[in-house]
């Protein structure tokens, strides 16, 4: 824990929560695995059926609980397994992303990406990039609940 907060020290390992839609991005993650690509272990994936299922409150909760970055990944527009989930997701998450940036979050802390089930390489690359960006930003101090540290 303490090392995690040791800002920008060599040992700083950020925690990145990635919410991936079951049909495209989670499968893209599987493909990255099957293809033995490698990306930083800082990323932890939570499977959701669709990025239309992504309640912005899940994102805020991750930040409260000490996540340093949050990524939501879904199917490319037009490819949603449920036809329209990512179209709705795009509007919802765009509005939300701008709102949290307005509240003072760094734009890189919260990202949304379209990753298809065939883009294992893109999956790995996005995870790599996200980790690098968060490492550069340092730990999330803005939304992290000060008490969480004492109970973990």
């Amino acid at each position, binding site marked *: 824990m303490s090392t995690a907060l040791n800002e920008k020290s060599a040992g700083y390992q950020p925690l990145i929560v990635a919410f991936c839609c079951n049909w495209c991005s989670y499968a893209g993650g599987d493909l990255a695995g099957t293809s033995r690509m490698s990306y930083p272990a800082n990323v932890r994936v939570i499977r959701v059926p669709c990025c239309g299922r992504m309640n912005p409150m899940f994102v805020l909760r991750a930040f409260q609980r000490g996540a340093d970055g949050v990524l939501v990944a879904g199917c490319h527009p037009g490819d949603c397994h449920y036809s329209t989930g990512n179209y709705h997701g795009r509007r919802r998450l765009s509005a939300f992303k701008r709102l949290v940036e307005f509240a003072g979050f760094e734009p890189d802390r919260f990202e949304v990406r379209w990753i298809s089930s065939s883009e294992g390489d893109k999956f790995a690359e996005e995870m790599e990039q996200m980790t690098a960006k968060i490492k550069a930003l340092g730990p999330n101090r803005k939304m992290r*609940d000060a008490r969480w540290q004492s*109970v973990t």
Partner: protein
Amino acid sequence: MKKMIAADELAKLWIRLAEKSTLFLPVQDGPTVLYQPWKDGAQVELEAFNSAISPKDIFLPREETYLHYHCSGQSLELAAVEDDRAVTAFGIHPCDLKAIEMLDRVFMEQEPADSLYQKRREKTTVVALSCTKPDPFCFCGIFDVDPLDAPGADVMAHLVDGYMHLEARTEKGKALLEEAGDLLENSTIDKIEREIKTTDFGLDIKGLPEDLKSRFDDPAWDELYKSCLSCGVCTYVCPTCYCFDVEDYGHDAEGERFRCWDSCMFGHFTQMAGGHNPRPSRKERVRQRFMHKLQYYPEVYNEIACVGCGRCLRSCPVNLDIVQAIKALGGEKVEHR
């Protein structure tokens, strides 16, 4: 012991007092005045009327963590969270101090005493400050509050002609003045003379608590509540409201327990586990709040639980305040009715 200090020297006093205690002062925070721990550079507003929220926060913090739990296997460990640092509550107006004395009865005179409150009360030195210019919503007069004197203060302070005069009335008060002895000189005045005019809104509260005993079902309640939005503004700004809730933070293995303010104006306040709610609508909740102030509290402590600070009159977004309630319930002078 009577001392004084030039008003433009007060910053030195704050520095001194903040060394050994947490010093609460009325501070300008954005467009609002609030009692907050003093920090270097804080804009202290001693004469503002009135702080948006009463200084009850100092004794009954809006949030207070008091234990830490840790589970492993079958064992549960609990550890109390304690803070022994002394507190100085500076610039408390007589009305607010009277309200704190009302809370004292609730938290300390009942068995068992509320140890968290008691501890805070005991470690706090209260420096009361007499009023200079009350605003149109101040109506403390009808509750026998003397705006120039707060009997329960450890130190009574007055701002007169560029000087703050400080009179220690208790041992704690003396200790505080001695602490800052080198900054103070002997006071040059003996008694403070100042005319303070507050309104009474035409209220006559004599006999009201007794009268209300039988008026739980009074038709007045059917109208009074209507404009209420069911928010908690009145209870949170009120110096005599003291309800709190207890909640845990953490997860299954580790966490802490804290208490925090709650409000009887919220629907969830009386929501029971099975889903039943004895105060399901705004009417019951509005009635509860005013009955508590005007009847239930007086029935136990012989005093209406209002000090006329005017905060609910200033803050209620729809102007549903205790004055309106008292009027609706007939607590008005005959000539005003």
